[in-house]
């Protein structure tokens, strides 16, 4: 992704089987389409993509009562050359790895995350918290969505990696495992496969839906 521009999106739908599926698909389609029209690595552009996705979800709920109550989380990465920026709503995460270590992780909009901020629980406890699925912000609910958008352009370095994933993924793969599997992998596909095997074994066949996207920055 040296000279190229790109937009990567992951969304995790909520609200009944079909409604959740529609919500996440609509959000991804809207964000990808918006980024194709005016690709820009700026907080303003990300804000626009997310508000458009939110509007799309609200409109769809008005038109179709079957999907009323559909919601979705989302995490978006946009990059051009070495410049990158990201935004998220809910508990889908973006991890930024540098020199093989997690350098940054988005902060969930969830009940357990607010307990971390209040000092009631440790960050490591989010994974196992009984309220971990209670979200404080989602797409498709309010007239305006309050997204967390990185305010400064992030300069990527060769050898950096980014991981976008839903809670079904990060709950079952520890950060140290993401780091270990990253240094063992020559391609994003290798990396994702190694982590998926860990997830699969740990879940013992009882895992939820999960999605993960891996991006390597060329050396």
């Amino acid at each position, binding site marked *: 992704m040296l000279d190229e521009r790109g937009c990567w999106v992951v969304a995790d739908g909520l609200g009944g089987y079909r409604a959740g599926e529609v919500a996440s698909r609509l959000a991804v389609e809207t964000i990808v389409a918006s980024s194709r029209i005016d690709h820009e690595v700026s907080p303003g552009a990300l804000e626009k993509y997310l508000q458009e996705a939110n509007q799309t979800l609200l409109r769809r709920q008005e038109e179709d009562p079957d999907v009323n109550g559909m919601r979705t989380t989302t995490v978006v990465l946009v990059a051009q050359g070495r410049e990158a920026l990201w935004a998220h709503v809910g508990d889908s995460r973006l991890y930024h790895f540098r*020199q*093989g270590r997690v350098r940054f992780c988005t902060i969930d909009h969830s009940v357990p995350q607010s307990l971390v901020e209040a000092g009631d629980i440790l960050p490591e406890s989010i994974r196992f918290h009984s309220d971990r699925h209670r979200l404080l912000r989602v797409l498709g609910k309010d007239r305006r969505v309050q997204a967390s958008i990185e305010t400064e352009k992030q300069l990527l370095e060769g050898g950096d990696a980014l991981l976008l994933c839903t809670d079904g993924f990060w709950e079952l793969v520890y950060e140290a*495992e993401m780091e270990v599997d990253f240094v063992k*992998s020559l391609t994003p596909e290798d990396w994702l496969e190694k982590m*998926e*095997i860990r997830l*699969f074994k740990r879940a013992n066949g009882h895992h939820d839906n999960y999605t993960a996207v891996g991006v390597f920055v060329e050396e």
Partner: protein
Amino acid sequence: MRSRSFWTGRCVDPLIRACEHCAGKVPYFLNVLLGSAQHIGARREQQDNFGFSDTDSPFFLGHGGVLAVLADGMGGLLMGGEASRVARDALLREYQAKEPEEAPSEALERALHAANVAVFEASRQEEHEGRIGTTLAAAVIKGEWLYWVAVGDTRIYLYRRGRLIQVTEDHVYAEELYRKALKGEMGLAQIRSHPQKGALTSHLGMLLLRHVDRNFRSFRLDAGDRIMLCSDGLHGAISRQEMVSFLGLEPSEACERMLQKALSKSKPQQDNITVVVMAYEPRRGLG
């Protein structure tokens, strides 16, 4: 049974040694504490062999860091003890031959292949070509960086802030089955009851190594991290929770306690047990 604390240096403070190249003016700081423990289990032969690179040469420590190696000879094949000894010796010899310019990861890779050739050559001499084999895991800590290679089911773990993760993937048939299960081609219950689930899919002594677990990029350690190498005699006998409960201790005590825990289970076919712990402690000894 053998268990020892590794520190036998001449210096006053075991963590700070005078560097021979600067005539003692600059203290050379050793950032790794080592521990190990070994037991024959309920077997007739000790087929595990382990060792460390020379920690008495500050010059070598400076460019090669500290290496630990553990090999577990395959009992089903001939001469398991001989195979793991040959592999360990060749790996240590080759790694020790590292020049300062050579990167630790390259030296490790070279040493692994030398160990593989050495096992293969030993099998030829004994006219058991390709029929002796051993697993092997080796880890190097140099500065804050970790490098490793592993073949077979001898594992490397990372213990970080109270959590234990398996660094290496076992080269056993079950891993191939898990990949099938992931695609929905078979069930997890079938894997657990599969008679060949523990069969090694890669080991030293095959002319071509089928799988090598290694890092292609440097892995940075945090102060307090522990790297554990152990043979299946340990990881087959005690649980991860049990390992975690001991890994916060001093390395030699942690090894001893894990060994005793495994023996306390009195498994009738208890395999040879070997465990090595490397503790990355860059701040210890600096006051």
